[in-house]
């Protein structure tokens, strides 16, 4: 056993109101520059929908992620090293800007400069790339709130996999929001695909970054990422991606998308895992078993053996201490209400999601516990759809998570209304009354410090403090060994 720490995020989809505040603050922070106008490190999709870039989940089309070969070995779905060398001059699986959208602004100047004329001048859309006037035909959230769903949503790969027919009739439609960012995977396909070794996973916290000085623009990371969350900056001709706001994380602050989240749906914390188990787990042949397999890799931060090994492996004490208080560990492992996005891509994503439980409130009225649980199968959002999205098709796992969420609501409702409480039903879904209350607190009223339990990075060893003594305000070359007396 080895122990590594990973900074992990959980998003509660049940509470996402689709306001795009995360996307906008992220954009203002990171991608308001030339070359990345079209890039949203964080974006919010309405599901069902084809998403951004179009049909990113369809790996038959984009060849992202990993694939289990006949010999039982994992290989990048786009191809091995030979493939990469042969296709380095033209990557057949690379999306073009039109698969995302052509970024635009409006010709506002025309409103001021237009000569006197019969009709009022208008500000026409112009491309932020070429500067030419364009007709806007697609955008980053074109399908917001199911806009155009009868045409587009049927092309959602998760819908296409459902056996029963999902009709886009108004009376039968369902939707929920899916905020997406880089998954900072444990087995990142982008890192493995980079020919120049510019992408790397940080040893301390598992954040996946692109070394801008080493990137040579070979573009394989972009096609290898099954979530299409590595982007090509067309101005600098280098790859860029979500940084998990590492300067904030190092200071113990949440990412900007989490900090500004209106619905307070995001949780960030440390999780300890055993990297030696990774290969074995990802070699599981059955996609449906992958979600549960993933849980085996996480280590109990309160287990003395794990703590001992973590210290041996150089995990800082504050990481271990914060792992014990980690909200994400509780949601993912202890209560199993958070699930991973598309585990079948086999990258082992590390941004997990609590599934939405549909507009289910009216179900609670005058229903017995048993009636309630039987109605979960007839939820407005088909369980199969959620399973295709979050568990690699494992409906039982989705059902288990939703059962627990519903049980917590039922329990708390009964408690608040002074009704009789049947704890046996809680036990059936694997919860104790204390567990239900903890889960309730976490999902409903958790404060800032409870949602974001982020250890600060120890930087006191970054510089030789001894050398710097007496230099306050006179900071000449403290990093330089040979120029000081």
């Amino acid at each position, binding site marked *: 056993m080895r122990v590594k720490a990973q900074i992990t995020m959980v998003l509660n989809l049940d509470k996402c109101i689709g306001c795009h505040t995360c996307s906008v603050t992220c954009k203002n922070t990171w991608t308001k520059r030339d070359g990345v106008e079209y890039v949203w490190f964080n974006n919010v999709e309405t599901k069902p929908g084809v998403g951004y870039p179009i049909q990113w989940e369809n790996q038959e089309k984009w060849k992202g992620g990993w694939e289990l070969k006949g010999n039982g070995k994992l290989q990048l779905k786009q191809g091995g*090293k030979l493939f*990469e*060398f042969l296709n380095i*001059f*033209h*990557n*057949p699986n*690379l*999306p*073009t*800007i039109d698969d995302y959208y052509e970024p635009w602004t409006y010709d506002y100047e025309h409103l001021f400069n237009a000569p006197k004329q019969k009709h009022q001048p208008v500000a026409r859309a112009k*491309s932020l*790339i*070429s*500067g*030419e006037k364009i007709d806007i035909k697609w955008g980053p959230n074109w399908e917001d709130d199911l806009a155009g769903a009868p045409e587009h949503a049927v092309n959602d790969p998760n819908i296409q996999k459902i056996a029963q027919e999902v009709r886009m009739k108004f009376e039968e439609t369902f939707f929920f929001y899916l905020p997406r960012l880089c998954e900072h995977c444990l*087995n*990142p396909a982008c*890192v*493995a695909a*980079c*020919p*120049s*070794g510019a*992408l*790397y*996973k*940080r*040893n*301390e*916290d598992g954040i996946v970054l692109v070394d*801008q*000085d*080493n*990137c*040579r*623009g*070979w*573009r394989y990371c*972009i096609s290898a990422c099954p979530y299409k969350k590595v982007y*090509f900056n*067309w*101005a*600098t*001709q*280098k790859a860029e991606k979500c940084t998990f706001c590492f300067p904030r994380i*190092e200071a113990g602050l949440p990412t900007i998308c989490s900090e500004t989240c209106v619905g307070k749906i995001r949780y960030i914390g440390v999780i300890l895992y055993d990297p030696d188990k990774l290969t074995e787990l990802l070699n599981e042949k059955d996609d449906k078993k992958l979600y549960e397999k993933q849980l085996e890799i996480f280590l109990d931060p309160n287990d003395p053996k794990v703590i001992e090994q973590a210290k041996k492996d150089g995990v800082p004490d504050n990481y271990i201490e914060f792992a014990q208080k980690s909200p994400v560990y509780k949601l993912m492992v202890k209560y199993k209400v958070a699930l991973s996005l598309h585990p079948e891509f086999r990258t082992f994503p590390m941004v997990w999601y609590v599934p939405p439980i549909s507009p289910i409130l009216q179900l609670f009225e005058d229903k017995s516990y048993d009636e309630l649980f039987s109605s979960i199968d007839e939820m407005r959002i088909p369980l199969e759809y959620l399973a295709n999205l979050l568990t690699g098709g494992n409906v039982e796992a989705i059902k288990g998570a939703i059962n627990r969420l519903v049980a917590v609501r039922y329990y708390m409702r009964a408690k608040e209304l002074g009704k009789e409480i049947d704890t046996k039903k809680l036990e059936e879904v694997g919860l104790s009354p204390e567990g239900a209350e903890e889960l309730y607190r976490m999902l409903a009223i958790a404060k800032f410090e409870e949602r974001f339990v982020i250890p600060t*990075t120890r*930087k006191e060893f*970054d*510089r030789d403090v001894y050398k710097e003594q007496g230099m306050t305000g006179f900071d000449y070359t403290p990093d330089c060994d040979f120029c000081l007396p």
Partner: protein
Amino acid sequence: MVDLARYGYDAINLFFWVVFPYIAITIFFIGNAYRFFAYPFTWTSKSSEILEKKTLRPASLLFHYGIILAFIGHIIGIVIPKSWTEEIGLTEHMYRMIALYAGTFAGLMVIAGLVLFIYRRWRNPRLKVITTKMDWITLWLLLAIAVLGNINTIVLQHDYRETVAPWFRGLWVFTPNYTLMAEVPFLLKLHIFLVFVLTAIFPFTRLVHILSIPLSYIFRRPIIYRERCP
């Protein structure tokens, strides 16, 4: 005035086939090293595939595979001495046939690729934005070199293995015999001169990506972990 020619000096040939190549090679090495260490952020293949990939497919594949073939051909024809190839049984006639057919094939691939490159950068409004003056200079220069190369292969068929090749090998051991270049046809001289012009501007163009062929990828472990940089 001292008549230099009387002493065997040939100022023009000396400049073009000794002085200028060494200047170009010096700029090449120092320029690349300086750019690599001082401006690593600018070191990229400058791919435009994200903006346009339909025309790029034939263009890039033809150009790159063509130029790899042409490069191998130049190694065989220029770097490896005639005596060596004859040693392994490659007769003069065989060499000429291979050089003519394979050379023309590779040369035409390169020209076709370059024409497509120029066409897409000229026509596509998105690509116009990201195409710098240096990109245009590089493209036209490469096209000129490729066209001249093809003329030499197909039309002139000068026996460069007796002239250019020994001179070129001499460059690398600091004994360039520039008098060998005197009888070389003008268009072949122009081809070689432009190659050294390209060598000199190389560090300031997108061509630097040639020096970054990711060979280390072959033996690399898939997932890279790195310590946080202070």
